[in-house]
């Protein structure tokens, strides 16, 4: 594989970064545009609406605060997983990666609980413009969390075999998975005040 795609574990002489990292950042750039379009839609819908509820009147701020802390913690465990590989400690990496996945699942369970509560009270995306954009933004973000769980679980279990043969490449993969995961955290850092507090 390394003969097919060059500079995946060593920096490219021109760019100074691995192609894997540059590719990941380009992917994240496209993600900025995806969420940017939805944030733009949110601003337009809110400024255009005759009345708009404060998020705290309809949504649970304590649950979302808890989830924010969960996601921030998972970002730390993710970067610690990468740091463990940089210190050549695979078992520590597995522990931190395991924690990251558990925290991500906790986030999804809490989000599911929030959704369930809304559906019980017959609040659906079709109920109002606020709920439409709320479900769209948090739903898309939730799918990103789920995607992160799948990728990270792969890197925890079968994917970690690469460590034995290509440790540098594996560390690079975890750094890229980390970049994605921190981006998911970053999006939530903005979603939380915009949807729940304002």
């Amino acid at each position, binding site marked *: 594989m390394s003969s097919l795609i060059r500079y995946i574990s060593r920096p490219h002489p021109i760019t100074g970064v691995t192609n894997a990292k540059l590719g990941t950042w380009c992917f994240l750039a496209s993600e900025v545009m995806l969420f940017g379009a939805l944030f*733009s839609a949110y601003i337009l819908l809110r400024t255009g609406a005759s009345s708009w509820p404060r998020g*705290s009147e309809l949504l649970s701020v304590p649950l979302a605060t808890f989830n924010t802390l969960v996601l*921030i913690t998972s970002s730390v465990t993710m970067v610690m997983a990468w740091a463990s590989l940089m210190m050549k400690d695979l078992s520590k990496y597995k522990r931190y990666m395991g924690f990251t996945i558990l925290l991500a699942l906790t986030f999804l369970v809490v989000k599911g609980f929030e959704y369930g509560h809304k559906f019980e009270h017959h609040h659906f995306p079709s109920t109002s413009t606020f709920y439409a954009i709320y479900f769209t933004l948090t739903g898309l973000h939730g799918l990103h969390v789920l995607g992160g769980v799948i990728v990270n679980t792969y890197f925890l279990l079968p994917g970690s075999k690469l460590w034995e043969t290509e440790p540098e490449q594996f560390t*690079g993969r975890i750094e890229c998975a980390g970049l994605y995961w921190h981006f998911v955290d970053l999006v939530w850092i903005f979603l939380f005040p915009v949807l729940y507090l304002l």
Partner: protein
Amino acid sequence: MEHATPEAIKRHVKVYISVFVALAFLTVVTVIVSYLKLSLVYAIIVALSIATIKGSLVAAYFMHLISEKKIIFWVLVLTLVFFLALLITPALTGLEIRSYVS
């Protein structure tokens, strides 16, 4: 970052913990401020300022942007230009869309 020594990584770990404490603290601050019932304009300014600080901390330290190569910055500058165009363009044509919403 690719060739950082174990000692350098240990120093990084201390920074990660400090950033985590700062992020948790700012999360609590933004929630407390939201209970103060500020006017919407002030609430938006405070909440988005805190979110920007938190986002910058994540990008700078967890995503290593503070020590990243120039090419990554150029990708991000280009993204920022398009992102701002995305936010500003609909606002300029907002009047027509407003009639559909209300």
